[in-house]
């Protein structure tokens, strides 16, 4: 898979809440299909379907043990996906921290301004 199609697969897989919950469970350690199906009130085949999508996206791998075939998390695709979400978030978090300060200033100015002029043209400076 190219990096781009792999990210596509990662996000498609993450778009479903059940699959996210499965991954969240696997953060704590490997689990069999049965163990994964239990908290979801879902049939084993339904869970297996989700596991196939996750496996296709490279988000999990399955053990070789024919009986149990435990699922475990493959962290790399998620780390990749998270890396850029995180960077993106940081830039916007910094923007918004500045906006918080600006809004505080605007509120203070509005409080200081006589009532009759309150709707006049925003914050002049």
């Amino acid at each position, binding site marked *: 898979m190219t990096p781009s199609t792999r990210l596509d697969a990662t996000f498609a897989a993450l778009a479903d809440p059940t699959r996210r919950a499965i*991954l969240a469970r696997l953060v704590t350690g490997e689990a069999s299909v049965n163990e994964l199906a239990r908290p979801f009130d879902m049939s084993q085949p339904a869970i297996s379907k989700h596991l196939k999508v996750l496996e296709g996206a490279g988000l999990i791998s399955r053990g070789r043990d024919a009986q149990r075939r435990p699922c475990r998390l493959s962290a*790399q695709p998620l*780390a990749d996906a998270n890396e850029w*979400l995180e960077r993106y978030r940081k830039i916007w978090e910094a923007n918004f921290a500045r*906006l918080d300060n600006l809004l505080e200033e*605007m509120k203070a100015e*509005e409080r200081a301004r006589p009532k009759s002029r309150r709707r006049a043209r925003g914050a002049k400076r």
Partner: protein
Amino acid sequence: MSYAGTLVVAAKGDHEITMIRRFGAPRAMVFEAWTKPELLKRWMTGPPGMTLPICEVDLRVGGAYRYVWRTGDGHEMGAGGTFLEVAAPERFVATERFDQAWYPGEAVITITFVEQDGETEVTTTMRYESTESRDGVLRSGMTDGVRQSYDRVAAIFETELAAQDAAPDRKRA
């Protein structure tokens, strides 16, 4: 009340990125800060060391806007687009394209402002023309040699789940 660190960013479906953040001000004020050049220049400056020296906004349907950011060493990055819908102070929709776009096509940005108890929740949805564009935008933030880290893996679930949890709250408003 501090809202720092409460920003939720998530990839949604195949084509979208959404951001949700609350602000401690009425929505008319937040909308104003988001659409008036002299106010935008004070906060939408991006990564550390950058400024937004050029910011022009013609806030009406069909009107154009343009931003130019400048780095400390004089490099510039511009972006702009056209307003498709303007409903002050509730929402606006605009196209967006960076001058040196690293992804195909234009994005459509929808920003909604919902006020509740004097606070305003702002949801920004960026819809790209293709999954490739969306991932290109996000991937541009990627660095080489990404480390595996289960903590970060856990963090992305929190982001995703928080986005899910936030959705019904907004409906109630």
